[in-house]
């Protein structure tokens, strides 16, 4: 048995178990975080080794888990998010109890995401999603005395529980129809199931519910603003930058491997959902007064953009989707961590609380500006580069009979234009508006770990934006691996 395919997951799982044990000896938040970071780092190293050695596709056991360019890239994304979230959490949860459980759950959630990325089978994928979900329910509820947090956790749990029931039902239908749960084999068999088309559609929609819930696709989005607002902000960053991306990985695998043969049946519907999702997200974001809710709706909108890759379905489109997932992890993760950072120095999460921020911390105001402008897709930042690839894909991917796809690009561009308004508004508050009378005006002392996490995101956003080629290449390799 070739265990090297699952080294990254194994290492991280071992560390997840070890954190509570270490906690018996040392109680210091910084030590626990350092220990968890070491685990994340080692796991990353295992993935990077795979890339460096260029071993290509490594299969574990009977082929339920693989490590290839696709899963490897996503593992790196998830691990990076975990790294940033832990780094930002050191100060953020300093005064809480159960710190060890907190770190342990973050690591476990990440293991779940990595399993999803590595899976080749619907059941393994489902187990991965469940590991992540259960860990994140607990994390959202971490501040159990906080009424908002508790309410958010309950909503998240109930909505999540029901949707995973739907998913499981859908998987059982797929299994009933094809007699297999392997994506590859399902993909071969669905094309031959002409008599059971309608039943297949039912299965498809059922499975879609669970994934759509994770990525906050309309109409399964309504939990997202409440949960993003109520959860500890570092955990919100993880949900938006990590667990959401896991949903996309699952969708890529299910739709583009499993259901590719009947793409003509679902592509228009997914395209409509994509446009509705981006439009509703952006328009709802216009009216928000809480920055966390605004970012939540913006997250929904970004999900709409990424969804575009499914109906187009070409290798180039998937490259764009993966690339946008990658850049979005930095932009949105960074933005939420920035909000969390400011919360530790008593700046609230209403947008108006950001008035005159530039006068109190140039670094934070600049970072948030870069991250938001990147989300809006302003060149030469990362969000712009990935949007170019993503939005050009429906145009280049059109073949006879699918000219309607161009509308996806049009909708994406118009939506980006709308979105600039609410991003620019925050920037205006920070730079143009003066501080309120009597409001504290001394310069902010930021926690170092959190500032570092924000800085990493900003550098990544600028770096990817200026030198996008290397990253496009990575994403392209991943897309090739997915279709291989």
């Amino acid at each position: 048995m070739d265990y090297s395919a699952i080294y990254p997951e194994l290492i991280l799982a071992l560390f997840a178990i070890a954190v509570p044990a270490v906690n018996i000896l040392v109680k210091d938040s910084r030590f626990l975080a350092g220990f968890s970071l070491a685990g994340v780092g080692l796991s990353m190293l295992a993935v990077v080794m795979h890339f460096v050695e260029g071993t290509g596709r490594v299969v574990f056991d009977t082929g339920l888990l693989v490590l290839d360019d696709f899963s490897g890239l996503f593992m790196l994304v998830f691990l990076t998010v975990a790294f940033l979230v832990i780094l930002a959490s050191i100060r953020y949860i300093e005064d809480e109890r159960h710190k060890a459980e907190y770190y342990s759950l973050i690591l476990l959630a990440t293991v779940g995401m990595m399993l999803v990325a590595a899976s080749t089978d619907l059941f393994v994928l489902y187990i991965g999603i469940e590991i992540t979900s259960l860990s994140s329910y607990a994390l959202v509820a971490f501040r159990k005395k906080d009424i908002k947090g508790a309410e958010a956790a309950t909503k998240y749990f109930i909505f999540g529980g029901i949707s995973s029931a739907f998913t499981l039902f859908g998987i059982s239908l797929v299994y009933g129809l094809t007699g297999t749960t392997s994506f590859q084999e399902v993909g071969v068999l669905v094309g031959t199931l002409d008599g059971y088309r309608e039943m297949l559609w039912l299965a498809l929609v059922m499975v879609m519910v669970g994934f759509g819930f994770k990525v906050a696709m309309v109409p399964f989005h309504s939990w997202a603003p409440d949960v993003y607002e109520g959860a500890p902000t570092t955990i919100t960053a993880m949900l938006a930058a990590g667990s959401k991306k896991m949903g996309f990985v699952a969708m890529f695998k299910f739709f583009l491997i499993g259901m590719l043969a009947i793409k003509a049946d679902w592509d228009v519907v997914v395209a409509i959902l994509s446009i509705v999702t981006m439009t509703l997200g952006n328009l709802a974001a216009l009216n928000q007064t809480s920055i966390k809710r605004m970012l939540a709706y913006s997250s929904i909108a970004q999900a709409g953009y990424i969804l575009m890759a499914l109906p187009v379905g070409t290798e180039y489109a998937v490259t764009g989707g993966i690339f946008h997932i990658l850049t979005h992890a930095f932009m949105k993760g960074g933005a939420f961590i920035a909000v969390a950072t400011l919360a530790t120095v008593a700046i609230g999460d209403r947008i108006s609380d950001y008035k005159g921020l530039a006068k109190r911390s140039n670094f934070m105001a600049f970072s948030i500006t870069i991250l938001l402008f990147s989300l809006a897709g302003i060149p030469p930042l990362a969000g712009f580069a990935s949007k170019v690839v993503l939005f050009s894909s429906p145009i280049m991917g059109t073949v006879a009979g699918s000219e309607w796809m161009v509308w996806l690009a049009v909708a994406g561009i118009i939506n980006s234009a709308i979105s600039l308004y609410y991003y620019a508004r925050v920037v205006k508050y920070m730079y143009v508006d003066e501080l309120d009378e009597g409001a504290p005006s001394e310069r902010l002392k930021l926690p170092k770990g959190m500032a570092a996490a924000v800085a990493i995101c900003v550098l990544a956003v600028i770096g990817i934006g200026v030198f996008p080629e290397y990253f496009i290449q990575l994403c392209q390799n991943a897309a090739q691996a997915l279709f291989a």
Partner: protein
Amino acid sequence: MDILEYAWLIPVLPLLAFVIVGFLGSKMKDKGGIVSILGVGAGMVIALWSAYELLTTGRIYRDSFEWVILSSDYSLEMGIFLDSVAAMMLIVVSFISFLVVIYSTAYMHDEGPRRHRYFTEICLFVGVMLGLVLANNFFQMFVFWELVGLCSYLLIGFWFERPSAARAAKKAFLVTRVGDVMFMIGLFILFTELHTLNYESVWAALDTADPAMMAFAAFFLFGGAIGKSAQFPLHDWLPDAMEGPTTVSALIHAATMVNAGVYLVARAFPIIATSAEVSLFVGAIGGITAFLAATMALCAPKIKGVLAYSTVSQLGYMILGLGAGAFLWNKGYHVEASIAFGAGLFHLMNHAFFKGQLFLGAGSVIHYVDTEELSRMGGLGKYMKVTSITMLISCLSIAGIPPLSGFWSKDEVLSVTFDAGDAGLTFMVLWVLGVLTAFMTAFYMFRMWFMVFKGQPREGSKQAIEHGHHHEAPIAMLAPLVILAALAFGSGFSLFIGDGFFGAIYYEHAHVLSIGERLEEVFTSPLTYVSIVAAVGGIMLAYYSFYKPKISAEKVVAKGFPKAMHQLLLDRYKFPVAYDKIGYAGLYGFSLLLDKFDRYIIDGIVNGISAFLIRAGGTVRKLQNGFVQSYATLLLFGVSVVLILLYVVGALR
């Protein structure tokens, strides 16, 4: 040393000043004024030198690298493309920017620490505007295009504590954005059709491209110009933009940024010329804009308002010239077309000088009397000799009195429009509009000049004079006024230097004439006298209305149709209202509606169903159970919607 090798420094030096002023300006005593002058000035030196090199040798300089490679077929470049058109833009932009920055050090003196923000933003603007000129492809142009828009937004809202300024900034941003989206769509069409956005590659590929798609591309690109150059029907942001400092109006909203749209049309000229319909559309938009804006300038109550409408109107002239050129080219009149192309750009250059001068002069007046209302000024000529004389020169120039610069270019634009009238009758109508505009231009400019400098001092002037402001503006403000006035007088003589303006700036066919031939061509044409008569007539009318009042303007507009018309003009043809209706009621209303829809209808259905379930089940603990059930219902609702969609689409296919 080949100066063009260093052309990349042209935008970089002002941007360097931007960075230095941005980070260190607040600690400097003059808040970054000197650094801005140095940065913009150094950029100007290289720009002028490069322009000299380009114009005297007639060479074209290219430099580029691949920026983003999307696939083997598609890639985007960053690069520099410098030809004579870019050289002319470099001269205009860098020189006026430099003068405005000098002027600003005095004009903004009272702003105290806020000058820091001002100089930072101005340096950024100059840098990105020069970057726009240097671009070698439409995409790079678009990137800088957006950045100048951002600077414009920031600077219009410089006095953001005034609600009107904040509103104007927002309006400028949103209205030009409509054009920007069209520009972007145009780019997409070009990119998919031609696989490149480089100017030269695009021009070369036009012969083999699908004409219908090129017409669409031209139409949408021109949409971008409509927004940026404030053409009808997206013109209304520019008058509001006067809420910014006057120096900003002079630099951005008269002499540089608004010309970006005209520059875009010049760069897209070959694409536009592939379609007679789009060419006609371009010309018509230009002519209509020129005319409508001139009518609105007739009774504008504020000094900057007159100049703003005048700017819109003159931009319309430039677009009209280029549109006529594209139309002529499309119909096969290649020599006339290349003159028309040059005429539009000639007017761009002259206009930048005299309008920049007029704005800076207006700034000097406002500085002195502390009001913008024309009705509170008067009699200032005695106290502001330099300002009044330099502005008089510019007024004569814009009115089109020979031999001042405005005469040469306006005459040329009108004559090419007349030529285009041979090929398409619509241009005949546009020519008539153009002549009427010339008449109105002369009238409103002199209305302004007489109301400010002649007659009895009215209350604003009186106060200023009594307060003992018996001095003109400082030298840092007067010097730019004088220099620009000299150019407003003489920039038209570039027709006679070397091969002449049309020998250097043209499309495909150079039009070289000796001085004698040029003069003969101009002054033997009856059209020239039509435009001179229009100009003199306008000035005379203004003279008898506002200087030696034989005609009472008040009485004319006291009742009946003239009164209604006057009100309509003051209401700017109701455009602001229409914008609000469409923009606010439309888009914002739609978003509110969706919000309501999400909150009441969707949640209502969900709550309704769950309420029904709860009642049916006779459950008492409503909250808890309703909670769970409403989520379950929401999911069921979603699943049903998606499933129904799948079936509907499946059935339709």
